[in-house]
């Protein structure tokens, strides 16, 4: 019998025998994955159907008064319908399978990169599941932990409501990875959020002459918390002299950006990184 025929049979039987429904008795709630028994006034055997959110089963039972249902058949939480059909007709009952105890976590940490010293910039959301991946909607305590570098872990407890618990964190002042974790029962999940330097602060340039060539280089480029901006950050140098204007977008390498520029007469040099501007330099080139 295919699934469609089975469902039609069950629907017809359910409609034909509403008055007999009370003859089949199941516990009001059952925990997912646990064995239980459905009692019936019908001592004769028959065909037993179990229809759940993700499973439909059918089997012949010899003793209709006590039907054993193995835990394997009720892994998914939700409303189930049990149906027993024999020569005398069909009887049915509904029962609810609730999730078992918390055993798994899904942890969503956002963003994956965050600037240092940003208030409430990191959010961690934990979703609590049982071992069969049912969302545990009953209140449960979730322990959140945050560990930055070698520092002591900070932990806070939150009660999950409808299966969800969350926390917001302020990023630290020092760049580097921060590990954000959530623990409930045996389940533990860990995510890593990178704390990165913010915009450059006090961007300063200085002139250099080497082997007859003129170079401009920055002091070590740092943000306002003292973190070095990551290598590859672009620093724009603009020089104006009597030959015209020169612009170079140079990436920071080993903490500083350095470019070679020809200078013709008196030159003014500006520096910027993103929307941050630095000092101005006035130099005189070789005449």
């Amino acid at each position, binding site marked *: 019998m295919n699934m469609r025929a089975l469902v039609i049979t069950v629907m017809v039987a359910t409609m034909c025998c509403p008055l007999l429904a009370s003859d089949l008795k199941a516990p009001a709630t059952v925990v997912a994955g646990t064995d239980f028994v459905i009692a019936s006034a019908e001592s004769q055997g028959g065909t037993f159907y179990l229809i759940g959110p993700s499973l439909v089963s059918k089997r012949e039972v010899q003793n209709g008064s006590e039907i054993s249902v193995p835990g394997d058949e009720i892994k998914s939480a939700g409303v189930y319908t049990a149906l027993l059909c024999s020569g005398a007709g069909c009887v049915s009952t509904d029962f609810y399978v609730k999730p078992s105890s918390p055993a798994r976590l899904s942890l969503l940490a956002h963003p*994956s990169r965050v600037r240092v010293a940003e208030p409430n910039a990191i959010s961690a959301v934990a979703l609590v599941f049982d071992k069969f991946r049912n969302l545990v909607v009953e209140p449960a305590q979730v322990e959140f932990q945050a560990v930055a570098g070698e520092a002591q872990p900070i932990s806070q407890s939150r009660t999950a409501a409808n299966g969800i618990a969350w926390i917001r964190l302020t990023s630290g002042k020092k760049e580097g990875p921060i590990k954000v974790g959530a623990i409930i029962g045996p389940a533990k999940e860990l995510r890593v959020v990178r704390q990165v330097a913010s915009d450059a602060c006090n961007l300063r340039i200085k002139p250099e002459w080497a082997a007859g060539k003129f170079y401009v280089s920055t002091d070590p480029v740092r943000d306002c918390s003292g973190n070095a901006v990551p290598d590859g950050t*672009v*620093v724009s140098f603009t020089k104006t002299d009597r030959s015209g204007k020169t*612009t*170079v977008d140079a990436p920071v390498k080993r903490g500083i950006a350095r470019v070679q*520029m020809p200078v013709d007469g008196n030159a003014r040099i500006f520096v910027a990184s993103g929307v941050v501007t630095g000092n101005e330099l006035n130099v005189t080139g070789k005449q």
Partner: protein
Amino acid sequence: MKYVLSISIGAVTFLLICIAWLQSGGLARERMRSSRTPDEATRLLLTQVQARNWDKALSSLANTNDVDKASFVHDLGGSNGSLLTYATLEKFDVWPLHANEQQATVRAKLHYSTAVGPLDDVRDFQVQRAGDTWKVSWPAGKLEKPAPQVIPVNYLRWEVINRGAEDDWGVQNVDSPQVRIVSMNALQRPDRVVILGEIVNEDTIPAYINVGATLLRADGNAMAQENSFDKISHILLPKQVSPYRIDFPGVQLKDIKSVRMDAKSMLVPASADPVIAVNRQRLETDPLGKKVLRGELLNQSGQIVNIPHVLASYYDGSGKVIWVSDGYVDQELQPQIPVSFAVDLPDDIAPKVQNYHVTVNHFSSSHTS
């Protein structure tokens, strides 16, 4: 009778060859072979260039022995995967500037059809009388090449490992880069509306970006949608700023209630190399009387940049972006060898320009970013 068919086929073939020869400008080439005027000498040279017949073009010069063939071909036909190697000289216009009995100057406007669209080049040719004929005198010079050397390149490169399809839901991934439009300006041009401005990569990783704009009518419905296409630097390193320009041909600013901007960013592998300096920038008027921004590009890295693309943003006295222009450079950028560029600027915008900023996109055949 049995020879009629073969004779007919032979005659038709001959006729078709003659037509093809005429179609390809053979008659014009023959007529100009005499080069009795400076114009004809220039046309003859450019016709040979058009046919990429470098030997004949070289032999038609007044100073054939002084001209380095590699330099000549590089100048007119490109090399090292530059834009000219993906271009054909579609047509040219020639007109005399001045002439005397022995010498003349002829100006030519070369119209190239390239892989990135049409490209115009204006050149002045010196033409000399040689007996009864005239010949173009090509500027002698060797092709500049970088000296043999080792250039250490140790700039950063970023690679990306994303979450796999087989990973469970909620498993960590890396976020897209954060980019921000820092300025936007809508302009009415004679035949179009132009949206332009600047965008910055605020993140600490490179971003592939694209800016789109939707014009909205007074009733809130969308009127037109476009994106910046190649009028932007698509790959932005951390804290790098790019101008963008979006054109809406045939649209009037008075019909627009508002503009919805959309900046999209993606995580891509990228390299901080090469670094290209833009030297000697100045606003000038070109020989055709148009305002242009000229300068020189200097590749400070060790790898050849095949096709450089110059993007210039112009600001008024208050620092607002009032125009964005771009142009592809037809020569490749060899390491440490300057190459000139020029991008045009509308005549009505030029007087308002107080400042400008030039950035360079680069396309290299050996790596894509």
